[in-house]
């Protein structure tokens, strides 16, 4: 099947309305495309990111309204949030590292099968 540069079909419920026809310089090295400008990134992702930020704020409000204490997950969450401010690069990596087990040695026995999303350092 062909996969041209024409307009997107609105497959899977996404596509057409969001499609940005971007300038591509693929005359010789075809896989290096021109990056989106900051304006284009904002046009494509701002509303989605805003929506996710409001959801985060509402989650914190909900957790703080509820009775009881913080646990290690909420503490890790706040530590991860602090990585978003400022101009440091690689924020996604910093957030993932904030939730990660920083230790190096294997544990004596698997404490079950699941992961909860944040390291319980105790």
């Amino acid at each position: 099947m062909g996969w041209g540069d024409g307009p997107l079909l609105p497959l899977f419920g996404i596509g057409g309305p969001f499609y940005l026809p971007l300038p591509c310089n693929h005359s010789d090295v075809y896989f290096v495309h021109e990056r989106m400008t900051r304006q284009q990134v904002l046009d494509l992702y701002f509303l989605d990111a805003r929506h996710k930020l409001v959801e985060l704020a509402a989650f914190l409000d909900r957790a703080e309204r509820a009775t009881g204490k913080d646990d290690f997950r909420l503490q890790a969450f706040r530590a991860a949030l602090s990585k978003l401010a400022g101009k440091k690069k690689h924020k996604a990596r910093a957030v993932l590292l904030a939730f990660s087990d920083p230790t190096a040695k294997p544990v004596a026995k698997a404490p079950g099968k699941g992961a909860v999303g944040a390291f319980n350092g105790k």
Partner: protein
Amino acid sequence: MRYIEPHAHMVSRTTDDYERMAFAGCAAVCEPAFWAGFDRSSPAGFHDYFCQLTEHEPRRAAKFGLKHFSWLCINSKEAEDVQLAAEVIALIPQFLDRPNVLGIGEIGLNKNSRNELRVLEMQVELAAKYQQLILVHTPHLEDKLKGTRLILDVLKNDPRIRPERVIIDHVEEHTVAMVLDRGMWAGMTLYPETKCTPARAVDILEIYGHERLWLNSACDWGVSDPLAVPKTALEMKRRGHVAAAIDQVIFQNPQKFLRQSKNFKLPK
């Protein structure tokens, strides 16, 4: 559009999913051995599963014009019982000559325990002995960073393991660089809540380039999307990636890695 789904647990999916994948341009689907969502009680349970992966599932896929390949192993979620794992590993060589088998996988770690590590070493030994490709599952969420480091150390310690014949799957922003730096392949798994989203996977491609990276849905019995790879192709297109670059990531890259197995052949 054409693509290869290099990691999908089709025994847990419906025939409707096969049809939708074929409709979206899927040329081949590769199925690593996995946890069933419950622990199997005996090696015989694994024997039947390996038969399912090498006999039944290829027939089911063929009804939709899809080539089906499989990887064999005992997964890390069932690796706490080393005795059981040893008995299962002893079953695997008899299946390695089957025509759709690509290698040993998805081996790896889950909770980074000593027994999981021991079973990982046993399966790396199996792969080295039979000169098989290796597909590695890295742990979830908070366990991923540590588990990825432990896994890379095990692989580095065996001089028979050639990095270009290993794919480390489920990488994210905090693990992708260490995998690529070792000369191994890295897989990005597209999940709705954990692992990568299409937007983040395309970010990683834009930062690290298109070499030795592939995309997969890892669809299984949990919340997952068998069309995640073509949806991410649309995300690439939305950002202005050209058709040839998209084809490289979703078709040529998995083909290049998987062709290192003599069994990986696509119809002309």
